[in-house]
């Protein structure tokens, strides 16, 4: 599904190298987790994959089902099936959540040469999906993320994911700022979307999210590289001993 090879990235504005040769391969239907200390480059990886400005790729490639992502505009990546659930979902005053969702869904359908959803059909689908995420009609009417609580913002991200039906989902610290109940609700939403044709990359500091979204593979990232890869037990090891042991072990 997603294949990242020797990815090197630096900040555009300053001469600061963030990623120093990331290699990662995620198969269809797999859930991978990336853990790592602050500043290891986890969030940068998610931004570079989704096409945010301000980063310069100096080497390497990132392919989604064989298509080179790094040469595409952010909207093209989305249409190709990539989705990033933001760590800090953006507030957009003046744009209704519903308008936003419908514009996004139809823009992607159009880009893929599919017919746009009618207002009626769209409403039906969105109501149904919102209900399972406990998102009420009021939240759909309000401007995008404006006045939403932390939990509401994250649930809204998952709703977008459910509506857009991407094949490769990146969750950037989706657990940050959530209490246990909110985290469970978000995890349930994610788990409901798991399927053989859809892969996930879960970026997190803590093991606790991985109790709810069970990964197949866990990677440890430090200083811009993936330094260790293992099964779910690797996350437990980090939880117990912190990152220091692994960092020392790898040197």
């Amino acid at each position, binding site marked *: 599904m997603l294949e990242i090879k020797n990815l090197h990235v630096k900040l555009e504005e300053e001469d600061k190298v963030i990623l120093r040769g990331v290699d990662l391969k995620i198969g269809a239907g797999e859930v991978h987790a990336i853990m790592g200390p602050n500043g290891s480059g986890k969030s940068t990886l998610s931004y570079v994959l989704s*096409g945010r400005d301000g980063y310069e790729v100096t080497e390497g490639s990132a392919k989604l089902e064989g298509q080179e992502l790094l040469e595409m505009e952010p909207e093209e990546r*989305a249409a190709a099936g990539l989705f990033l659930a933001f760590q800090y979902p953006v507030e957009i005053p003046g744009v209704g959540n519903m308008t*936003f969702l419908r514009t996004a869904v139809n823009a992607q359908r159009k880009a893929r040469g599919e017919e746009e959803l009618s207002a009626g059909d769209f409403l039906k689908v969105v109501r149904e999906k919102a209900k399972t995420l406990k998102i009420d009609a009021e939240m759909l009417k309000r401007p995008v993320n404006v006045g939403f609580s932390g939990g509401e913002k994250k649930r809204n991200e998952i709703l977008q994911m459910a509506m857009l039906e991407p094949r490769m989902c990146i969750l950037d610290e989706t657990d940050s700022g959530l209490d246990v109940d909110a985290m469970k609700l978000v995890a349930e939403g994610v788990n409901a979307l798991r399927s053989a044709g859809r892969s996930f990359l879960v970026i997190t500091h803590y093991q606790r999210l991985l109790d709810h979204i069970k990964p197949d593979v866990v990677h440890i990232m430090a200083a811009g590289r993936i330094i260790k890869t293992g099964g779910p037990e690797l996350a437990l090891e980090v939880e117990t001993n912190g990152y220091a042991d692994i960092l020392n072990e790898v040197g």
Partner: protein
Amino acid sequence: MALPKAKEDALAARLASLTLPAGKGWLASVRSEALSRLTAMGLPARRDEYWRYTDPTSLNAPAAPPAVRFEPGDEAEPFDGMDRLKIVFVDGIFDPAASDDLSLSGVTIERLALAGDTDIHWAQGLYGQLEARGQTPVARPLAALNSAFATDGVLIHVTGKAAKPVSLVYVHKSDTSDAILHHCVKLDAGACLTLLENGPAAARFSKVMEVDIADGAQFHHVRIQGRDHERRAVTHLFARLGAQAEMRSFTLTANGRLTRNEAVVELAGAEGRAHLAGATVGDGDFHHDDTVFVTHAAPACESRQVFKKVLMNGAVGVFQGKILVKPGAQKTDGYQISQSLLLDEDSQFLAKPELEIYADDVKCSHGSTSGAIDETALFYLQSRGVPRRRAQALLVLAFLAEAIQEIADEDIAEEIRGRLERWLARHGSTG
């Protein structure tokens, strides 16, 4: 006091190109009064405080600088398909063939050019009167010039609920036309009118509208200014509101080399409400000036000024807005916001918000901001698959939303949004 030499010369040059329209009735005398006001004030100059941000040279010039017409392509005329009474002016001259019959239930409509010759007319108490009142504390010489020299216009007397909107359509035909129109609108107590205006009118357009809104009457005004890129316009809206009267005025401006829209509103009776709003989009050689003066002269009135401008490729936006709260106007609720969205570093927004308050139990706020498009929001939208241009248009419309919300009629608001969307699609984005 004698005028400075430069002002005297400019005025003499301008007056030499104008003739007082012939007439013997009431209008002739109010015209000559307006002319006296003008000669006492002289024409505006860049050195006048009120014209610091807008150069009046081309508005003062004896002849109108030429302007070619805009070809709208397959885009429908504004308010097309709406049930309305259409009154058409071509280069500032009433066109009876293109206009509807002027009879409308609840409303009496007359042409200024015909009604001016009578000895007595209701408009005598309005024409030039609110304009004259609006000359203090700030001089508005171009409005006085208009009162003196207007060649046409309509006198609208609303006695009940107007059966449908009255729609003034200003067609521009000649590249060098110089149109001066003056309208008076009088709403009796409890009457109700929606007035629509659209079109460039001429290469250079001067328009004054005086509106007297009696107790409990409602006046809704929506204007879409002409899209000719080279046109110039100076407009004045003078309004006086009685007790519990309501006025809502919204203006959409896209294109035009120079536009100065002045609004002078007096809340003269208790619990009146005046909302003034504008949405402006300008690309390139575009200068747009909203100059607004709202006076709270009675208690418990509400006023809102909401002006938003989107500027790109060196376009310039100006806002001069004032709220004056007179002694005794307690419980005033005044709000003023002027904002610009600058889509590049070449564009400019100049704002001068003012409050002057002589009552102690009032709520007044004003704010003015200038900003760029929110790149984070743009990326967020793109990351969900919305193409950059469309994402930018969404954010621009969101920025303008507060002004568009001031339109009472949702169908008209929807039309305005559609026009803005198409304009944004054509003018694209920087970056």
